[in-house]
């Protein structure tokens, strides 16, 4: 099947750890998955971005053999999810949306139990449990029942539990939903560390920011269908990435500022926009270098700036710019231009 939504024209590099083609799962009238295609290359992170009810969790459940798909194929580490579930289960780790540990057991007992279920000897299971408690900074809470853990500790224990069997592929289903920003950063650090150790990760999230932080490639799904996929940078270019909001002291400076940026070629493909009712200039930002250059240029031209800040497009804005349904959105950028920017 030809994937019309791919934005990169280069064939993906490296062997695939996850290969999904035309995956379908219906629950009665609800089409949780309606023909999903996606690839995850070994050692990379694929972010699956979508709103609540887009089918993200169903996808993860299919790929971890908890749900049998109605149609389509899916291979993980070379194993067929339908025909080789037993082999497949040996190669995966799953961290669900809700902490999948036994709340009544202590952190150490949870990890020990999973070690034993993965056929480690008693001694090895103990050693591995202590090793992972240490690594996930849970040693102090090792003997406490998981029900008394904070949200972040639980999520870390959950990640530790998924790592016991050295999985080749790890599924993280909304790993930071419901966590405060500090705890979220801790989880991100752990995920990045796992990836640096060569684990392939399929991550589902509702947050553009999280996808940007962790994933190298992105698949955007909605209503059980893939609506876009490609490298994070390319998708960002399509949806505009971050936006810099500059508020000059004097509103009359706005046109001059926009002109300066345009002449210097610093305002991206779509160009900057003046939001006169707010008294701000909106500049699409694709890289930190561009951001620095924009701020530097405005300062060098002597514009007095009262306030500035960047913001990421919300998931809604991402969706609207991909599907082009938002009337106020700039015309979708032709693929050729996207490439030039990304290059």
């Amino acid at each position, binding site marked *: 099947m030809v994937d019309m939504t791919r934005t990169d024209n280069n064939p993906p590099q490296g062997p695939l750890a996850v290969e999904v083609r035309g995956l379908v799962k219906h629950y009665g009238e609800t089409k949780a998955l309606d023909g999903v295609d996606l690839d995850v290359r070994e050692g990379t992170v694929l972010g699956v971005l979508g709103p609540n009810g887009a089918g993200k969790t169903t996808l993860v459940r299919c790929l971890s053999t908890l749900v049998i798909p109605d149609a389509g194929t899916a291979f993980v580490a070379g194993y067929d999810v339908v025909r080789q579930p037993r082999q497949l289960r040996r190669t995966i780790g799953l961290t669900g949306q809700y902490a999948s540990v036994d709340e009544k057991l202590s952190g150490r007992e949870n990890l020990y139990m999973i070690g034993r279920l993965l056929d480690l000897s008693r001694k090895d299971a103990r050693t591995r449990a202590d090793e992972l408690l240490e690594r996930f900074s849970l040693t102090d809470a090792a003997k406490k029942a998981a029900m008394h853990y904070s949200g972040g500790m639980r999520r870390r224990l959950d990640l530790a539990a998924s790592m016991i069997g050295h999985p*080749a592929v790890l599924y993280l289903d909304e790993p930071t939903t419901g966590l405060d920003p500090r705890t979220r950063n801790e989880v991100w650090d752990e995920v990045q560390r796992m990836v640096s150790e060569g684990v392939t990760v399929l991550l589902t999230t509702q947050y553009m920011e999280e996808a940007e932080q962790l994933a190298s490639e992105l698949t955007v799904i909605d209503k059980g269908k893939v609506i876009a996929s490609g490298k994070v940078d390319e998708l960002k270019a399509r949806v505009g990435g971050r936006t810099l909001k500059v508020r000059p002291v004097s509103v009359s400076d706005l046109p001059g500022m926009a002109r300066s940026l345009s002449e210097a070629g610093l305002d991206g493909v779509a160009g900057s926009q003046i939001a006169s009712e707010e008294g701000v200039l909106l500049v699409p930002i694709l890289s930190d270098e561009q951001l620095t250059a924009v701020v530097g240029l405005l300062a060098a031209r002597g514009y007095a700036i009262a306030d500035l800040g960047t913001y990421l497009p919300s998931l809604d804005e991402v969706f609207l710019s991909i599907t082009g349904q938002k009337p106020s959105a700039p015309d979708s950028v032709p693929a050729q231009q996207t490439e030039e920017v990304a290059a």
Partner: protein
Amino acid sequence: MSTVTTSKPGGGAAAPVAAATAAAVRTEDGRIGLRANLRHIGALVRRNTLQIKQDPESMFDVLFMPIVFTLLFVYVFGGAIAGKGNQGDYVNYLVPGLMAMMGMNIAMAVGTGVNDDFKKGVMDRFRSMPIARSSVLIAKIVVELGRMMIAIGILLIMGFILGMSIKTSVLDLLLAIGLSAVFGASLMWIFILLGLTLNSAQAVQGMAMVVLMPLQFGSSIFAKPATMPGWLQSFTDYNPLSNLADAARGLMIGGPVGHPATVTLIWSVAITAVTMPLAVRKFRQKT
């Protein structure tokens, strides 16, 4: 089961990494050997036991049910049922019957436990791990049988305190306990099935009571069926609890054993044969 013949995109590199983590006990097609299976069940039994340690209140039923029922029926109803002054004899009649009942009441707890477990993410983890899915259920049953043994132990101690005497041999007593365990285990499959089918633990409990009450009281556990109306007698004749109580009575204080024990075993086998495959199937397909 098909071996690795399907196309394996990129599998060459990823699979060995994973294979290296699994112990050599596994065969190429991923089947789980008997020893590995027993080890998994062991780890899950340990889990269920630790849960009890963390939540000691869950043992209240096991500890107090035998005490409350013996005291209540011997001292409050005993005189009325067996005649004033005959409480001593009634203990001998009652305790074997209560032994049959313990199994049923404890089996009920399995259903609520399974239902609770499914509300938690940990079941997803078990089901996405390379273990036989049935091992989760079997471990649960092993632990509940342990709880049942404790309850029966307390019941016997209470019986002895209240003047019960075993008129047969220790072996007969053990046979009576064993028969109760076999029947109790078969009931557990019914409640596991209910626990997997119904939506809430409360629903399981409510449903269980509907089944439990008539079986429990329309039996020979508390009173001799000979004192009941004819239609009820024909019900108690086939009630497995009556048969189990009668068999236990025969084994503990003497009397016919063969017929009631056979009926009990037929019931146990029939219940297990029907509900176990259904429960395991339901468990596999649960999403």
